[in-house]
């Protein structure tokens, strides 16, 4: 498998939010990280709203749930958000 084939942008399954999530995951600048996380969170929220009337078995809903969990970890571990379930 070539490097090009494994690049994140080559494997976009959920175009409404996956690029924004990857941008947040790959962001190394702490000053920009909050913006990236906010953008990803907004994209996930809008997509959730669009999918709200679809079947709960839709695999994208589970992917969104996983993505939100990742963002929560970034927020608490890198952005200083207080944990809600302390």
């Amino acid at each position, binding site marked *: 498998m070539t490097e090009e084939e494994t690049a994140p942008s080559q494997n976009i399954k959920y175009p409404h939010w996956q690029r924004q999530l990857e941008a947040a995951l790959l962001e190394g600048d702490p000053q920009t990280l909050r913006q990236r996380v*906010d953008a990803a*969170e*907004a994209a*996930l*929220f*809008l997509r*959730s*709203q669009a*999918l*709200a*009337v679809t079947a709960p078995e839709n695999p994208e*809903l589970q992917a*969104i*749930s996983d993505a*939100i969990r990742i963002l*929560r970890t970034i*927020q608490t571990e890198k*952005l*200083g*958000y*207080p*944990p*809600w*379930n302390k």
Partner: protein
Amino acid sequence: MDKKRVLIVDDNSAVRSMVRQVFELEPDFEVSGEAENGQEAIEKAENLKPHLIILDLSMPVMTGLDAAPHLRTALPDVRIILFTVEEGNEVERLARVGGIHAVVSKTQPTATLVSQAQALLASQDDGYGSDQLRNAS
């Protein structure tokens, strides 16, 4: 009929904007302000005296769960809806402990948020208590 004042609390400006649009379409509500975290919500609520607070859970500085008891103390009659992507029994338990009146999932259509808000405020106007947590997740 007097419009019900709504305070929207969420760290994400896109979410605040969408919630604002939803409530501004309703003739019985007016959005009186926005806050980006729990601490700011407490400060603004004391000035704006909203009837209803739409409260995010995970925010910088102070979470929605930490802010809720302070908001209830400052405004005992205010109705609070936790609007969150987090779901499950633990969130509901902590929401109940914090004095939150309803939990609405961000994965639900925003119409659900409005209907919960209307139901909560109607029960308040009818003189019924709302100590039992409503769940629309």
